[in-house]
């Protein structure tokens, strides 16, 4: 079955469809990484996105339900150059294609992904329609416009969390307690807390500062997520009220919300950082780390400085701000997934973890 990826600007690419049929709309983003395709597709922060995999061959290690980042497929669709038919030794129990079928994840294979990724980079990230329907370009674009409006009208669809995938767990004692404002955390976010014996209470985006403080947490963490940037004014207000009372740290979209609470307004990158190989430098210590990221948030160092915050992390390729900290207000944000206790501690400063 033929399928097409049609960008808002009218550019269309044709390839073979797999996994499902019909049409889906989302912002197409280019994902750089040689593994973790299934993980990305089930990560809540990829909700509403169409993942264009830059790695030509996708799914060589198959799929395994235990690798999911949430209990549902979050991406609207996937686009690849080659869908692997076979599975490597030590890979998952089923081919990636079958996983897509079982989850009704619509995909394209045989697509010129290098060209598509170049298109995204040069024109910026934009909405696109992934479709198996035969129709004129004009009606496809009309359909895309309709789906886009429908999505924007229902922000609640972004409320997905990977927390549910973790079996119930109690800390072995002595650990810290964190409040998580979960606006789309993946399971590995919670696994990280668990592996460091950090107890958490997770809430959705509409929690008040008083309710949070009542728990007397050691820190408040704001997860990554997929909500449109300005759709969570309530959460920003909550965070503003928490500033100075408890260490607040945000990741990805969460970091953008913390920045907003500090009075620094984020903007959108032309094309964001989505992948497993994004290099950042700690501006204070000079320490370097390769990070996994999924965000399109841009902050200006100058704006941070004006609000009393300092740039904590800088991207070593494009120089963009990848993290910040306001020491007095005990607030910080990072645009990459935390991968260890040192990362959490670096970010949360005084957090006694």
């Amino acid at each position, binding site marked *: 079955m033929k399928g097409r990826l049609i960008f808002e600007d009218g550019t269309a690419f044709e390839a073979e469809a797999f996994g499902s049929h019909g049409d889906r709309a989302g912002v197409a983003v280019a994902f750089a990484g040689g593994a973790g395709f299934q993980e990305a597709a089930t990560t809540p922060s990829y909700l509403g996105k169409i993942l264009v995999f*830059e790695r030509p061959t996708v799914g060589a290690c198959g799929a395994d339900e235990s690798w999911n980042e949430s209990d549902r497929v979050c991406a609207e669709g996937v686009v690849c150059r080659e869908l692997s*038919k076979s599975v490597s030794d030590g890979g998952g129990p089923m081919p990636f294609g079958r996983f897509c079928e079982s989850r009704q994840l619509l995909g394209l294979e045989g697509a*010129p992904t290098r060209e598509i990724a170049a298109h995204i980079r040069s024109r910026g990230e934009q909405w696109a329609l992934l479709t198996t329907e035969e129709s004129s370009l004009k009606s496809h674009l009309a359909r895309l416009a309709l789906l886009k409006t429908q999505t924007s009208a229902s922000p609640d669809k972004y409320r997905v969390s990977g927390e549910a995938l973790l079996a119930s767990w109690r800390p072995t004692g002595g650990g810290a307690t964190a409040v998580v404002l979960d606006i789309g955390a993946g399971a590995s976010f919670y696994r990280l807390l668990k592996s460091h014996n950090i107890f958490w209470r997770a809430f959705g985006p509409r929690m008040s500062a008083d309710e949070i403080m009542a728990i007397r947490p050691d820190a408040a963490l704001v997860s990554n997520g997929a909500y449109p940037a300005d759709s969570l004014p309530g959460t920003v207000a909550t965070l503003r009220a928490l500033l100075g009372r408890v260490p607040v740290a945000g990741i990805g979209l969460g970091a953008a919300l913390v920045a907003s609470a500090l009075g620094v307004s984020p903007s959108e990158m032309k094309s964001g950082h989505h992948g497993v190989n994004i290099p950042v430098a700690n501006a204070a210590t*000079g320490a370097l780390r390769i990070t996994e990221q999924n965000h399109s948030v841009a902050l200006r160092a100058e704006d941070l400085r004006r609000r009393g915050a300092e740039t904590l992390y800088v991207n070593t*390729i494009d120089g963009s701000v990848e993290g910040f900290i306001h020491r007095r207000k005990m607030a910080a944000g990072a645009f990459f997934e935390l991968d260890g206790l040192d990362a959490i501690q670096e970010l949360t400063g005084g957090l006694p973890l």
Partner: protein
Amino acid sequence: MTAKKKKIVLVGAVSSSASAGAEFDHACAEAMKALRDLGFDVALISANPTAVSTDNDAPGPVYFEAVSPENLAAALEREKATALLPVFGGGAAVNAATAPATLKAMKKLGVSLMGVSETSRAASADRRRFLKLMKTAGVEVPPGAVVSSVEEAEAAALEIGFPAALRPLMSEGGAGNSTAYNMEDLEGQAASALKSSAAATILVEKLLRGWKEIEMVLLRDAKGNAATVAMIENIDPAGIHSGDSAAVIPAQTLTLSATRRLKKSAVAVARALDAVGVVNVRFALEPASGDIKLIYAVPRYTRSSAFAARATGYPVARVAAKLVCGLTLDGITEPEFGGGSAFREPEPDYCATRLPRFDFEKFPGADDTLDTAMKSTGGAMGAGRTFKESLLKAMRALETSRPKPPNASTEAGMETLRGLLSRPNPARLFHIFDALAAGMRVEEIRSLTLIDGWFVSQFAEIAEISARAGKYRIETAPASLLKQAKLAGLGDEDIARLLETEETELRRLRKKQGTTAGAGAMDASGAARARYAAFESTDAAPKGDRGKKIIILGGGPNRIGQGIEFDYCCVHAAYAIKEAGYTAILINSNPETVSTDFDTSDRLYFEPLTFEDVMNIIDREKPHGVIVQLGGQTPLNLATKLLRAGAPILGTSPDNIDRAEDRKRFKETLDKLNLTQPDNDTAGTVEEAVRKARQIGYPLLVRPSYVLGGRAMRVVYEEADLREYMAKAVSASPDKPVLLDRFLDDAIEVDVDAVADGERCLVCGVMEHIEQAGVHSGDSACCLPPYTLNEAIVEEIKGATRAMARELGVVGLMNVQFAVKNDVIYVLEVNPRASRTVPFVSKATGTPWAKVAARVMLGESLEKQGVTEESAPEHMSVKEAVFPFSRFPGVDATLGPEMLSTGEVMGIDRDFGMAFLKSQIAAGQKLPDKGAVFVSVKNSDKRAIVPIARKLIDMGFEIVATEGTASTLRRNGIEARSVHKLDQGRPNILDVVKNKEVVMLINTPAGKDTKVDEAKIRSAAIARDIPLVTTISGAQATVQGMEAFRERGFTVAPLQEYHKKILAASKARKAIAQKAPVKKIAAKKTAAKKSK
């Protein structure tokens, strides 16, 4: 960095047998550039004349000396150096730099060691320390033990079980590595492994059969930051040396969790070793459990580092050099990154597969089973969008013919096939296709080869497309299927064969259908420096080219007969083209070269050097000219076909190339010029050969007409030999005749390189061979200028060269081989292309001849270039070949018409004896100063051996000889102890050699009767590192060198100093007169007298 100006001496590659690393040439070249950029003074020590790093215009002094503690100390002292940097010259360079003698000298001179941390030095010398470090780092290693005797090895193997991998600690390129499957294996292997270890210690380790192997190439800075440049996944399972493994970048089959764990562990290993610079860490991964274990960690540049650099576009060597100087990853920027710092991890959106190139057919009798000791001579890289495309391109790029499949219709054939799959061997990947064609299932192939099922499935997908295409003929094949086949990477030639048509036909059809190759950029590191052709990508053609576009075809994978000497020529051509204001475009498939450095050319294509792949680029680039004469035989062979397809070939016309290569036409040319050739003829049948041989006379040089590089060449002395050769060695037929040449016994062979512009011809250098005619020119030691030939003969040779260049309309380089016998000059061969001696001649004479030739090809005459004088160096330069015999135990180490060497070294000094001695030492011979020398020569050499033996006695050596030789010597008043031949009872000569009772062997092969015995003796000597001389002229030269050393000891001086003298002499000559006859070769007369 300190304010005081540092002077860093780099240790270059030790040209050692099969691991002779072209990768170290480009690493040293890049490192020198980087250090120079940082403001350091640099110098290099390496005896490799073929390298670009040791070039005339290197960014610092170059010492052509063996990499030994003594020479390192001498160079450091002479340069007043502050630091020694060995990590870009391979394991042997590091071993030499960290040898106690070197460290002691460095301490005395106040020189620091760069690039090797104290921790890693201590850990490489002491395994227990290493294990402790790894344990602390949380990294597991396979079960094993460190032992220092055979008995301990046995005990260890019993405990961990078979198969066991044996690895000598502190050895080079996997020398002495082996796999023991039983106790008997182990005994022999442990003994030889102990010998290969500089620390006399070996590691006995459980072989992780069926585990995957992943190699990580990391960069780490002094602050502890690390980035993974590439994860290399081996297609072959654990147990094969990484240089011999088929491998792919990026890793294809790993899960996210495995990827993360491998990266973390690799960083932990590098941290534990406190390594700064480039680190290669190799892990084994058990698919079922996901367990990973560390196989090895090497904190220096390796062949894998080179592959990683080329596949990702990351300038690994340059960045590593800067890291070693204390810069941090985020403090380094390079043009390859297109902005931003060196701290990045490339994620290619393409695939690069590297396949090793083997030359086992050169070593009959050598076991071609692959294991943990490296046996390949080089490798080829294929790039494509998918693994399938890159694999098939790499297979084409190897330039080997596909092995004949066993007849799979019989059960015996299937059994053979199964054996070829389960035993790792050079052709295994090709046999996977044979097995699939024979209907074998993926699962069975997987369990036989232990290759990951995903990889086998990729082969199966290719086979499936082939099978589908095979159902059609050219007229009926659907366009979509052709497109699919091209996307999968199948070559036009393959598809044409399936459709039973001609390659050109298929090409025409698919182009008509619009299936043409685009190009993708290998821009994983940022900027688009290198490119590859792919049938999907639609990257726009690059803009902003300067002037005319010139394409240079490179030499492909390193192999015996075609190595980096041709790469040197291509590199110089690229420089010349850029200097002339044109755009230089290079096509090559060899990742271990300087030509594939991203700043050598303006644009680089990683493509196989086949007609199709080259034409794809020519179609795309539409160049003004294509240079085919610099990359060796590979591009030259494409010339006619490319010309026919409309490619603009620069330089000597393909018709004239053909006139030199076609025997009949060549004979006509020589007749016209009144030049002599040894009598010769061709024969299509045994009887014809015998008849014609009687007319020509014996001995005869025989070879098939359709192979190159001296393959299957033999000297036959009588009719019986010829019959045997005709019957066994070749399958002659009227269309593939055997060539018969009169063999000139005891002649002196001479190599000449020349450059011509169509009008004028200059002789670049005349090289006199040290071995007599009959030894392949690539295997002979030679001296420039000639050391025994008289001036009249040399002039006559030069005249003949010029005449041939004129007649053949040579534009560019030409190489001629002559033989001189009884003052008669015979022309053996003319090659209107760059020869392997061009870099040697350029360095010996101080003129960059390849560059001169490239400019000639661009239309700039020699006169216009100001190159009008033939160089006349007063020093002597000796080139010696380096052989891989020690890699192939049991192979006869005799030189003959078939080329066997894998590398070259050069010795340079004021007189011949010393230059020759230096070349021998650089080639790894440890010449003795006392003890017993074994002498056994054939009858015709008996007279010549007398003065040699006398000199040895004069120097205080004792002579041991077989009865025949001993009695000759005694008759001439030379004392000689006789020893039994192998069939004369014991102790015999083999016992004497095995007991190391002799310190040197002079053994000239006597013919086939004693062949087996002598082969045994020679391989026993090589196995024990006892110097071995197999020709009488070699013996003369060796003795002369030893004498020179006794007289004046050893001094070192950089190449550039010799060149200064040449330049000064040339200026003086020009000042005195324009046309005065040039006084040449002052030094040679004394040398010639001495040898008489």
